[in-house]
Each structure stands twice: as structure tokens, then as C-alpha cells.
């Protein structure tokens, strides 16, 4: 009887374990299929020419597969959006965790969550019909669909990520650190800036990197508002064509199994590697530099 139960229990355990491996299996499959479909392009173009090539004319004869302008476009919108989303996200997190009264916190926190849940296509649409004409008029530029507009819209999308992860980090700072600081006569503000922030800086850094990783991978916004010109931008009002936008815009036209098709998958590989390395860095920072006590303050 007990043996039967033990066997049954073990089976249940194995069942849950095997289901839990589906996530990692999916990750592996995604990687595998990206490489299977993307690597063939490197028989035609060298990796160096692909990554650093300055011309992207996939349909001309002979075609040019250089994604350097697209990489610059992606990095450009990510960095400019980070300039806005980092201060905004971190400040909102500090406000929520340390300054806001519980009643206000109960209202503001869901607002940030709702902002995170807005579909990207709606934010892109807003950027097209409201922000683009506005920028065009105010700065007197030929088109409002450009790097600046895309960065603004992306900042919208990465603020909630940065905010909620930083807030967790700030919230998990040990209470005795804070109390000691207040007991020594520091004001609440001095406690925040000199004790709580240093103690949670690794978590905040991880949050910032994850927010940037979200921005670099976001597709619909950059597809709709970045302008779509595959060239290295000279100013923030130039149109750009980030990696995800390029994939989304051209995949439908690329004939299956052709060079263009493989080149787009190879673009996907680059994008995948970029975001995975961002995630690994964030993971590393939050584990290695975790504040575990008072000692290292």
C-alpha cells in the first residue's frame, strides 16, 4: 500500500518536473530555429560584412545585406529612450516605495501597471497621429516619424518595467538600515539618497538594463513611428530603421528559403543575442552585487 502511494507520488513529481522543462525547451527551440534559418545567409555574406555593412538593399541586384545602420538605429532609440525612462522610472519607484502615503500608493501603482499593459500598437498609433504632427510643427522638420518620436514612445513602454523592478529592490532594503539612519537624525530625504539608494543600487541597475532590453526588442512602436529609413542617423530628427522594425516590415515580402528570408532570420539572431546578453548582465548584477547586510554600505 505505502509502496503504491510512493510510486504514485514519484510519478506526480516527474510529471510536474517534465512540464517545468517546457520553458527551457522552448527557449532552446527558439534559438535552434533562429540559427537553422539564419545561418545560411553567412555562406553568401561574411559575418563581418553582415554586421558592419553599411548598405541594406535586400531586393536589388546584387543584394546588399549590411545591417550596421539598423543596429545603430536600434541602439539609438534605446539610448535616447533610456535618457528619459531611467530618471522617470527610478524616481517613480522611489516615490512609490518611500514617499507616497499608502492610500496614494494604492492608486498610483495600478496606474503604472495599466501603462505597462497598453498594447504597443496603440502606443505606436498615438505616436503616428499625435506626436508626429506635433514634432513636425514645433521643430519644423520634414517628418515627425523619426528617432526622437520613437524614443519618446519607447520611454513610455520601458518606464513601467524599470519602475516595478526597482521598486521591488528598494522595498526589500532591510528596515533596520533605514531606522538607524533616521535615528541618527538624518531626514527622510537624506536617508533615501545616502542609505536606501546605495543599498538597492544593484537591483536598480538590473531594472534599468531590463528596461533597455524591453526597449530594444519592442517592435510595433518602432515599426510605426521610427520612419523606416535604413541609414545611419545624423541627428535625432532623422528617420531610422531599428532591427525589429526591419524584420516585421519585410518578412511578409521575403520569399521562403531565399537569401532575404535568411538575412531577416540572421537579423533576428543579432536581436536575440543583444537582448539575451542584456538579460544575462542584469541577472549577473542582481546576483553578484546583492546587498546582503550592513557591511558593504
Amino acid at each position, binding site marked *: 500500500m505505502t509502496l503504491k502511494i510512493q510510486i504514485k507520488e514519484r510519478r506526480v513529481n516527474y510529471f*510536474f518536473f517534465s512540464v517545468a522543462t517546457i520553458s527551457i525547451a522552448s527557449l532552446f527551440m527558439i534559438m535552434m530555429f533562429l540559427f537553422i534559418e539564419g545561418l545560411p545567409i553567412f555562406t553568401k555574406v561574411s559575418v563581418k560584412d553582415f554586421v558592419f555593412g553599411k548598405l541594406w538593399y535586400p531586393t536589388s541586384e546584387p543584394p546588399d545585406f549590411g545591417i550596421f545602420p539598423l543596429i545603430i538605429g536600434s541602439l539609438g532609440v534605446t539610448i535616447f529612450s533610456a535618457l528619459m525612462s531611467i530618471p522617470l522610472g527610478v524616481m517613480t519607484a522611489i516615490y512609490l516605495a518611500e514617499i507616497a502615503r499608502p492610500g496614494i500608493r494604492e492608486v498610483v501603482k495600478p496606474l503604472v501597471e495599466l501603462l505597462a499593459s497598453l498594447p504597443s500598437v496603440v502606443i505606436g498609433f498615438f505616436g503616428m497621429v499625435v506626436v508626429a504632427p506635433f514634432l513636425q510643427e514645433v521643430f519644423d522638420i520634414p517628418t515627425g516619424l523619426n528617432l526622437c518620436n520613437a524614443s519618446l514612445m519607447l520611454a513610455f513602454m520601458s518606464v513601467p518595467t524599470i519602475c516595478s523592478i526597482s521598486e521591488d529592490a528598494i522595498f526589500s532594503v532591510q528596515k533596520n538600515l533605514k531606522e538607524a539612519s533616521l535615528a541618527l537624525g538624518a531626514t527622510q530625504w537624506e536617508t533615501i539618497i545616502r542609505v536606501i539608494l546605495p543599498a538597492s543600487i544593484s537591483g536598480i541597475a538590473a531594472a534599468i538594463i531590463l528596461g533597455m532590453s524591453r526597449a530594444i526588442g519592442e517592435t510595433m512602436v518602432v515599426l510605426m513611428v521610427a520612419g523606416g529609413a535604413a541609414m545611419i542617423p545624423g541627428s535625432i530628427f532623422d528617420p531610422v530603421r531599428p532591427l525589429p522594425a526591419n524584420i516585421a516590415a519585410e518578412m511578409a515580402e521575403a520569399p521562403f528559403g531565399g537569401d532575404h528570408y535568411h538575412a531577416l532570420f540572421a537579423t533576428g539572431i543579432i536581436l536575440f543575442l543583444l537582448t539575451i546578453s542584456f538579460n544575462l548582465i542584469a541577472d549577473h548584477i542582481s546576483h553578484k552585487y546583492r546587498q546582503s547586510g550592513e557591511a558593504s554600505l
Partner: protein
Amino acid sequence: MKAKIQHKNLRKIIQQAMFFIFRMAAAINGICLLLITTFIVSNGWHAINWTFLTQPPMDSMTKGGILPCIVGTFCLGLGAIAFSLPIGVSSAIYLNEYAATGKVLRMIRFGINNLAGIPSVVFGLFGLAFFVIWMKIGVSLLAGILTLGIMTLPVIIGTTEEALKAVPNSYREASFGLGATKSQTIFRVVLPAALPGILTGGILGISRAAGETAPIMFTAAVFFTPDLPSSIFDEIMALPYHIYVLATAGTEIEATRHLQYGTALVLITLVLGMNLISIIYRSWLRRKMI
């Protein structure tokens, strides 16, 4: 003495000033959300009427309604969650109830974290290469459901784990003390207690799947089909993709603006509505627990 008091006042003033700036930063988030929603609502509600909600698009999508898109988005959201909820909940049960800390657990967590960070367009590429072409499913509702299902897995796992963690250990101990086995404890004690939290996660998963565009662009959605999907192997229309198509690729971008606003309004009502429900429900649950 006087200098000391002044110094103290100065510190107070600095604090007030800085707190003001932080308050403004937090307010900007609310203002942005308000700005976008009021803009969509005020422009979109003219377009909403019975015909709009119950008719397919007509005259090469310059007139008519969006019924196929609404149905398509519902099918995608529900299908994706039907796929990912069982897998996600089981994974979370393993992680929270069974797994011992060690290499295996770290590997699985690594997989989930990285799956959560993959760009949506890469999911689209994977769905195209694997489901559509390699498994020969073709551009169809099923391929879209599977792609979105994998994409929503991390959301489900995360929220389920949180719900399981919130079940007090005394429940488990009481059940063990009565002689129940581990699986009996999980199925009859832990899961029922965690069910509301898991359902909240499910709603969030649906709303996430319903709002995504890039993963369905190459796997499920098409510009136009006049018919509603009759099987999971049919191509479908979906709200987010419809907005994108009308706003960028249509022949009459300006003339169909009202349709774009209307579609966007329906989409954000759906997505924000589901999120709002889960947020309110969750805060009610928390209050009940305390």
C-alpha cells in the same frame, strides 16, 4: 544655535523640494496614461455603433465593421491561455512545491527569465519557422495560439508562483499532519487556496496575448478575410493587426481614421478592462487575507 536651526530648516526645505520633484515624476506616468486613453476614447467613440461591432469590413476596408477582428482576437487570447495555463501552472507547482534549490532549479529559472526577455518579433520568427513552415500548420489560428501561448508562459508562471507563495505554510503542515500525501496536499489544499491568484494571472495572460501584434503578423493574421474562423486552421483577422494595417498600409489612411480610432478603442477597452478587473480583484483578495 540660530545657525543650527537654520541649517535644519534648509534640510527640511531640500527634502520638500526633492519630494515635489519625485511626485511630479510619478504624476507624469498617470498623465501619459490619461492622455493616451482620453485621446483614443474621445476620437473613437463616434465610430462605435452596432454596425461597427457586428459587421465585417466592406469596400476594401474603408467602411463596415470589425467583427472578424474582435472574434479573431478573442480566439487568440482564449486559445493562448488554454495552451499556456496548464503548462504554466504545472511549472509553477514544480518550482514552488517540489524543486530543491540546485542546478536544475537554476537552469529552469534561467530558461523562464530569458523566455520573458525575448522580443516579440523573435517569437513571430520562431512561430513562422517552426509552427507555420516546419510543422506545416500554415498561417492559421492554431499557429498564432501556439506562438502566443509560449510567449505568455512566463507571465503565467510568475503570477502562479506568487499565488502559491501566498498560501501559508501552516495549510500544508496541517494537511501533512492529517496524513495526506504531497500530491493530495497540492491538489486539495494548496491549489484551491491559490486559485483566485492563478485566475488573475490567467486574465493578465489573455490581455497580454490579445494586445500583441508582432508574434501574429507572420503566423496567424491576414489583411482581410470576410468570413469568421470556422476551424483552428483558418487564417484570421485580429484587432491589433487591423489597427496597424489601416494606419500604415491601407490605401486610404486618412479616410479610415475613424475606423482606426474605433478599433483602437475596442482594443484598449478589452485590454485595460481585463487588467483593471484583475487589479481590483487582487487588491480585494489581499484585503480579505489580512
